[in-house]
């Protein structure tokens, strides 16, 4: 029987990403090729023009800031002019430029790359890890996104998947995935809070779970609060201590700062399980006037870390209170509280959450892995058609039209299962109104301009009549692929106008095809480059052996009994190797290796009785 095609679930995070699968009925995390569950969502082009993804990219982020791109999730599917992007640009060291359609491009390695392309590099890495795990190609995935992502952001994430060579079976909400991993689809009916404190963001969601249907009833948070803030407090503490002792500001030296960042993160993680952590950074700085390099040695206790970050823990509670308050959800109404994200392992955070909700948060599933595991469970259920676990594809946000007064009339509420259709009747708002402009909006805000404008069109030729006398049917249709069609029809005249809205990531189909082609070429070139590198190393090694053997042969009396042609042949092989070494042709390098290898055999095996062949 043919093996079932491997399926993966991906938590594509702002700071870290994880890939998981269901194996023998159990959801498991697939470790990356360095043996770790987490792959930093960082891509870079190193100084030697090599593309780096994951922990390697992260580890050179500070020493190579302009060419290291992180937190692209904050930018995905957004417009360059948006408040969120402009806000993000203030803190990003890499260059972001406007695209042709108010989309945005990130400058890396001398190229302007779209955000889905960058996300695709991370997905490609995860895909490769999964392929290494399964030992065969992987092409189908479920990817998670924050509950507040709109259609454009979801579509951009899907596009990233396509660029990475993945068929994205479904995009699901992160809190929903977390709840799925806890098995709440089967066991819980009621409200559940999911607090996701990751590396760079804090998301609070309230889910209403009812007979396996997951409804996100409230979502909020702070897109600039996460583990990095805790790291920075530790770095500040270390820098201050070192400056006091040696009069040197380590932040001015990128190498030192990179080491501080790595050490701070490590200490923070350690302090979730032990009460004190040692920070040893030998040779961290050479004094300006020269002399022996200085060491940084320090001990950080859990109490000290709590002191340094007390206000951050308070912010977590404050934001949670705010989100629940906006949704009119009382903590006592909640059936469960799920903690997600690496930072939620910190004892101080657990304590703060326990204090606020007056209950023990859910434990049992690793908080960093829970979202990816949920995604894997969903991928498995989709293919296996396990209906009790099958999430319905729903509209993530409400759809409606702008009406007089600048407000919104919702026609399809969020979390409506697709495909779906709904019609609403509108009337003219002015006397003798000839035209009506239909503005299609997505979002939850009451004010039209606070929502995302998906498209607009004008219905003309309306019958002349006092206001309110002309009625127009506005119909929204969403098909199974999530494509929204909106039509407006004058009931009297039958005049009709319509628009089709496809969620766009900012990339046109042509651009997407071109990028996919480039990715294929890149992967091909990378494979050839690896082969060339391996062959050159083999060639160099053989050349050294041949030189050694030649030297020995020359030192031995009578050439050590070598045949008359052994030495000239070896010299010819060396000369040939020298000529082809820089060739970009694996075949010619392989041939040169064969020649050297043959010569080596001849040099090492002289003929009988001192007479070589």
């Amino acid at each position, binding site marked *: 029987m043919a093996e079932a095609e491997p399926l993966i679930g991906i938590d594509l995070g702002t700071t870290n990403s994880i890939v998981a699968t269901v194996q023998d009925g159990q959801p498991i995390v697939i470790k990356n090729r*360095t*043996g770790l569950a987490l792959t930093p969502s960082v891509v870079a082009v*190193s*100084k*030697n023009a*090599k593309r*780096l993804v994951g922990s*390697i990219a992260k*580890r*050179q982020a500070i*020493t*190579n800031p302009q060419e290291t791109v992180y937190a692209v999730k904050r930018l995905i599917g957004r417009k360059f002019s948006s408040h969120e992007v402009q806000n993000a640009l203030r803190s990003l060291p890499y260059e972001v430029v406007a695209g042709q359609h108010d989309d945005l491009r990130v400058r890396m390695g001398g190229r302007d790359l779209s955000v889905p392309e960058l996300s695709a590099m991370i997905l490609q890495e995860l895909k490769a890890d999964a392929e290494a795990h399964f030992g065969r190609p992987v092409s189908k995935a479920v990817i998670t996104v924050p509950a507040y992502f709109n259609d454009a952001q979801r579509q951009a994430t899907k596009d990233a998947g396509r660029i990475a060579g993945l068929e994205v079976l479904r995009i699901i909400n992160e809190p929903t995935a977390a709840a799925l991993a806890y098995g709440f689809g089967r066991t819980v009916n009621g409200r559940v809070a999911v607090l996701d404190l990751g590396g760079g963001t804090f998301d609070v969601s309230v889910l209403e779970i009812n007979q396996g249907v997951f409804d996100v009833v409230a979502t909020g948070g702070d897109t600039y609060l996460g583990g990095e803030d805790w790291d920075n407090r530790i770095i500040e503490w270390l820098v201050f201590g070192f400056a006091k002792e040696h009069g040197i500001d380590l932040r001015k*030296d*990128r*190498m*030192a700062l*990179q*080491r501080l960042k*790595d050490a701070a993160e490590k200490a923070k993680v350690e302090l979730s399980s032990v009460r004190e952590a040692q920070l*040893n*950074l*030998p*040779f*961290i*700085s*050479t004094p300006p006037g*020269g*002399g*022996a*390099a200085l*060491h940084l040695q320090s001990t950080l206790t859990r109490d000290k870390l709590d002191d340094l970050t007390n206000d951050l823990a308070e912010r977590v509670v404050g934001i949670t209170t705010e989100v629940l308050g906006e949704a009119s959800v009382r903590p006592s109404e909640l059936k469960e509280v799920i903690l997600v994200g690496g930072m939620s392992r910190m004892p101080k955070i657990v304590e703060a959450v326990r204090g606020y909700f007056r209950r023990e948060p859910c434990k049992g599933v690793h908080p960093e892995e829970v979202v990816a595991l949920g995604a894997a469970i969903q991928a498995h259920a989709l293919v296996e058609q396990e209906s009790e676990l099958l999430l319905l594809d729903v509209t993530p946000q409400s759809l409606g039209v702008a009406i007089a007064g600048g407000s919104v009339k919702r026609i399809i509420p969020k979390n409506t299962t697709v495909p779906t259709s709904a019609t609403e009747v509108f009337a003219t708002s002015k006397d003798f109104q000839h035209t009506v402009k239909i503005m299609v909006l997505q979002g939850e805000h009451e004010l039209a301009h606070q929502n995302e404008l998906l498209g607009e069109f004008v219905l003309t030729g309306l019958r002349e009549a006092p206001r309110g006398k002309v009625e127009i049917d506005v119909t929204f249709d969403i098909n199974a692929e999530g494509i929204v069609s909106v039509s407006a029809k004058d009931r009297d005249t039958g005049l009709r106008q319509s628009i089709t809205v496809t969620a766009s990531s900012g990339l046109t189909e042509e651009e997407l095809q071109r990028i996919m082609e480039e990715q294929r070429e890149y992967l091909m070139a990378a494979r050839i480059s690896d082969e060339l*590198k391996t062959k050159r*190393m083999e060639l*160099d090694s053989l*050349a*050294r052996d041949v*030189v050694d053997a*030649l*030297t020995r042969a*020359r*030192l031995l009396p009578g050439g050590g009994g070598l045949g008359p042609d052994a030495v000239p042949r070896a*010299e010819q092989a*060396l*000369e040939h*190797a*020298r000529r082809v*070494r820089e060739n970009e042709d694996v075949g010619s390098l392989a041939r040169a290796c064969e020649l050297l290898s043959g010569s080596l055999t001849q040099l090492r095996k002289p003929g009988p009785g001192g007479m070589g062949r």
Partner: protein
Amino acid sequence: MSPQRANQLIEAGLWLRLSGDMRGAQRLFERALQLDPGNTRAKEYLEAAVAALSAGSVTPFSPPPADVVPLPAQVLGRMAPATPSLDGDWGAWAEGQGGPPEGASWKTPAPVYLPEVPGGSRVDAMELLAREDDSDEPQVFALPDNDTQEYGVPRGDTQEYGVPPADGELELLLRGAEDLLELDDHSGAVDLLFKAQELAPGDPRVEALRQRSERMLMAMLESKLGDLGRVPRVRLQPDDIIWLNLDHRAGFVLAQIDGAVSYEDLFALSGMTRLDTARILAQLLDEGVITAG
């Protein structure tokens, strides 16, 4: 011919010693002594080099002790003594960092006098690999007897009251670099060529020779490191590491070696040029601080 070559080898050895390559210097002093067994300077310098090496005080990561710096500043004239930051930090030399502070009155010392390579032909790494090691005396020194003076400073190049023209100095550096290449001292050649580049930025000859010597040096260093896909490991305990004499750049590279990253990864994440990183890694390997994996 032999005494003359011996003197020139001594001068080349002094150069290597100045740039911190005590082992290379020792090798040249030994060769000089083989050519001219009665040469007292060769004996003297060889003893100093052996003593310094056996004391373990001179490593590529540490400056040579004051007593082995060959020339007092007043004798050197325009050759100011090597600064501590220059001595130890090989990588810094290569990238032009960590050298003397900008604006410092440090001048490039005149290199040893070495002749043109016959025919001006160039060899590449494969030819070097293929070169026989049992050749006769190296044909790299061919200057008239009276062209050098004690302490290795070429007589014709030193002016008591002035500095020789930069062009002349550039030529000296270029020839010195070529000759160091002939002696397989690619590291020294690269150092000289960086100095030459400071004197004549954009000079195509300097650029070409620098690229070539860097390529050769890189090939040698990579060959020393072996398979770059291997994962190096730190051999010493943290308590022992702090007693090493490393600079912050070597410290940074060492800190990245965690038993998970390969040499190739280290090149990418060091934030330095490939050559600088390779030099540091090769030295860490030589010093026994790390194992090849």
